[in-house]
């Protein structure tokens, strides 16, 4: 049985093949997956919010925000032996779970999380090679660090592989 490393909400982790990385119930949150195919090292972050910039006080949980989770995950992967220039990314989640008749920006958090994740990846020149984002349903994702395949499970649409 392959060991599965669980990543919670506002959490991140990295693993070397053959371990798998898994996070459940991504709604408006985004699962950011990084992978180094040569060294077979993967990383997975389950971010909740786009940016840590609005936080003014105290210690922050870097895994909670797109802009801080990605650089932290890169560092952790590099310390496991990954090569920064080989990293590629896959994104999943960022759904709009409910349809509202409201102008409240907070209710559009899913799409904003996706945009922020893409910006943070672009800043580090990490290409996004696949994505399954948006829509209005939750996703559970699992990264196979052997192959880099990301399987995405949903309530109604079965399993999709990226």
């Amino acid at each position, binding site marked *: 049985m392959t060991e599965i490393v669980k990543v919670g909400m506002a959490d991140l982790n990295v693993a070397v093949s053959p371990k798998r990385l898994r996070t459940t119930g991504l709604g*408006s949150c985004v699962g950011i997956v990084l992978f180094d195919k040569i060294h077979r090292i993967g990383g997975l972050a389950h971010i909740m919010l786009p940016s840590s910039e609005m936080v003014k*006080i105290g210690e922050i949980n870097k895994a909670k925000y797109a802009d801080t989770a990605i650089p932290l995950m890169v560092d952790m992967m590099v310390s496991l032996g990954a090569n920064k220039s080989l990293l590629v990314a896959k994104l999943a989640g960022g759904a709009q*779970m409910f349809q509202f008749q409201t102008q409240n920006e907070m209710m559009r958090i899913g799409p904003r999380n996706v945009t922020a994740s893409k910006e943070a990846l672009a800043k580090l020149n990490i290409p996004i090679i696949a994505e399954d984002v948006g829509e209005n349903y939750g996703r559970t994702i699992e990264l196979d660090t052997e192959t880099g395949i990301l399987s995405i499970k949903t309530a109604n649409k079965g399993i999709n592989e990226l």
Partner: protein
Amino acid sequence: MIMKRDLNALQEIELDILREVGNIGAGHAATALSTLIQKTIDMEVPKVNIVSFADIGELLGGEEQIMVSVFLRVEGDAPGNLLFMLTLDSAKELVEQIVYSEESNSDEFNDMEYSALKEIGNILAGSYLSSLADFTNLTLLPTVPAVTIDMVGAILGFGLIQVSQVSDVAIVIDTTFLEGDRKVEGHFFLIPDPDSFDILFNALGVNW
């Protein structure tokens, strides 16, 4: 948006107050439901959980558990999120009693059943909030509810967005109710915004 106090550091009296908030709100909602389906509804003592985001999925039988959820944003004096969650079986059971639809084995809901769910959510959440508003003398206004059927983790994750901006834990007031023969089990989750705690406690005569 600066939170003055740590949500982890609530006193027993404050937890009691939040339990009472859940009790009053859900009590009235249960009465409304009981009238709607003309059956007796039992209610459990509300649980006030201080949960870290990492553990949130454990609240309702795992993050991947599929549940029917009605979501309302509470606006007014003490903003927050209100969720009414039912298992698929419970939702089916409830809807059949209200729209007298044919019993079906499918997990899908047709349009009629879907609007019935939305309306049930509307009525229950409305009575939850109006009783709370009466009791606290606060203005609490529900937005139009939205319904979805999806994984618990995905839904609660969204319900925690406001809280997540200032905290890694949330205070969740969970009230379970059951229909007489236990066929229908529902949960109310009230997730006040961090700034709303002061307002709720003050309205109830406790200086937090």
